[in-house]
């Protein structure tokens, strides 16, 4: 930005120099009157070309600045969008063989409610996951309960259920491949994924 301003200043300065009428040569009158006129005309023509060029440069610079403004504001929106996406993707976790939203996770879901309210075009998918301790096939049903539990929370806080899809992967997609409680507690989770309307998100 700073560099661009300097460039711009430079450009303006050059334009100013170019536009400034050059020191006229004090020519002695000569009989060649028509010639004097043609020289003067030639000079004016050159001056006007220079001026036009300078104006063009100035316009270009202004355009560059305008583009930069757009890029900057887009970046700002992008930053906001990414921040919102990160918030939206925050996981919630569950106790073993349970599909009840933990007290501490309610605030995480409240944040998602706000995001969904601030961005009416946003559609999401919630996927429920389990740890490896339970039965492989039962875990598909349990993961389904976990995804549904989060959806019900969002719907009960005013979000249209049509904007939320639920799926279950049981224990098939562990977040942590380990075989201890630390890994299991990470794997008993709901994930939140954007299906549509996530290009530019507003901060709630």
């Amino acid at each position, binding site marked *: 930005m700073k560099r661009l301003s300097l460039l711009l200043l430079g450009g303006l300065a050059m334009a100013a120099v170019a536009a400034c009428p050059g020191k006229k040569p004090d020519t002695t009158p000569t009989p060649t009157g028509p010639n004097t006129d043609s020289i003067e005309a030639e000079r004016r023509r050159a001056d006007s070309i220079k001026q036009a060029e300078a104006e063009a440069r100035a316009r270009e610079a202004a355009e560059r600045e305008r583009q930069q403004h757009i890029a900057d504001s887009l970046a700002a929106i992008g930053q906001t969008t990414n921040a919102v996406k990160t918030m939206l993707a925050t996981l919630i976790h569950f106790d073993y*063989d349970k599909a009840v939203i933990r007290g501490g996770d309610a605030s995480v879901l409240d944040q998602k409610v706000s995001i969904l309210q601030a961005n009416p075009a946003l559609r999401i*998918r919630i996927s429920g996951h389990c740890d490896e301790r*339970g*039965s*492989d*096939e039962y875990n598909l*049903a349990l993961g389904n309960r976990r995804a549904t539990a989060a959806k019900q929370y969002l719907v009960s806080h005013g979000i249209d259920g049509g904007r939320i899809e639920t*799926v279950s992967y049981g224990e098939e997609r562990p977040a942590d491949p380990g075989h201890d409680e630390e890994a299991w507690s990470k794997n008993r989770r709901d994930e939140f994924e954007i299906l549509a309307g996530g290009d530019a998100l507003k901060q709630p």
Partner: protein
Amino acid sequence: MTRALGIAALCLAVVAPARLTAQDTSAVDRGVRIGILYRPGVRPGIVVLTGRAPALDSVRAIMARDIDYSDRFELITLPGSDSIRLAAPAPPAVPGPRPAAGTGSGKTSGGAASAGGLNYPLYQALGADFAVAVTPAGGDSLAVTVHDVAGGAVRRELRSRLPPLTDPGFRMAVHRLSDRVLEATLGAPGIAATRVLFVMDGKVYVIDQDGAERHLVSSTDHAAMSPAWAADGRRFSYMEFWQGHGRLFVQDVATGKRAPVATTGQALDFTPAFSPDGKTLAFSRAIEEGTDVYTVNIKDGCCLQRLTVGRFYDNLSPTYSPDGQRIAFVSTRAGLPQIYVMGADGTDPQLFAPFDYGATGSSNAPEWSPDGQAVAFHRDVAGTLQVFVLDVRTRAVRQLTSVGRNEDPTWAPDSRHMAFVSDRSGYRQLWIIDLETGRIRPLLQQSGARLPAWSPRLPETASPTP
């Protein structure tokens, strides 16, 4: 001569039982406890011979292993069967391509040491009740002669034309012969010509019951789960994840072609189970209301029916009784998942495997035995899973395993063997247990194999090698 033989027999007789005892002890050490105690020596002894036909060694080896894995015999192995046969009083040991009259087909009997030239008293001294001799019968044919050692006669001669050793169908052809030997000796149907489907790394594989011939059968594009056989052994079904939905497929064994099951794939559909007549597929469907058991007519691709209705609990993992009248399934209506049973139309659901409320752990993965008398499942015991068997008539439940985590049992067609997943060796792999003797053996020594499904006896025309 007689005296020398007697000594030789004595030496061998001492060696053989020692080996068998050791084998059985190792199974007990692995933590299997069953109701029936196995006493060495109760089962009939059998010896498998090839005489002087080294070309048939692989046949003999496969058959001997099949017979061993049937767990119905004491398999007597001889160090160098040739020498024993040479010592037989009535050579020749190897019949010619055109056997002499009397060894024709089926039911020929002869006196001791006549047909096949076996020294019956010697094999009897070794503890053999039966001897199986595999001999060439001209061309690509072979003869399997089943001797009744105690009766001193040939019980049956089986002729078979085997594909070449390199043919993908070779091993299965030998397995079929093994099953015919079991039928000829004990009148019992065998399980040699069977295979097990299982899941590994999200793909479905099939493997022969003896651990050979592993092949990938599902697609590699989508993670798969829950393979299940049709009762005729010509088709199987499994589930694949398609963008968060579960789609069921029915695949033809012979052609390898598969088709998605109508009405599935719009929700999370899983755990398919064929009705015994093969016309209906029962499965679990998870929707926002919960998970319930449904059926769909796969013959006409229509007529989705919901069998269970549980708004606040889940119903899943259906398994048909072999008569097709009932379905056992898992339900969480009492809190933790337990085993229930209902009519095949969804009527009259009731508790199947009794449990102590608040004390008994989760019970899952039921599979009805092919003889209809039992349902195997696994149950959470002290934080790990163990395999249980429910007696359908008495509703008594007994625990089959106790060491390590043991889960997802599947019945062999003889209803006495079972494949399951266990981490008793340190990592999860597939094992096979014989419920009668308690003997266990690994089916696949590879980590990560799970969700096994044991086939029925495979029809010859299915030609299941992909």
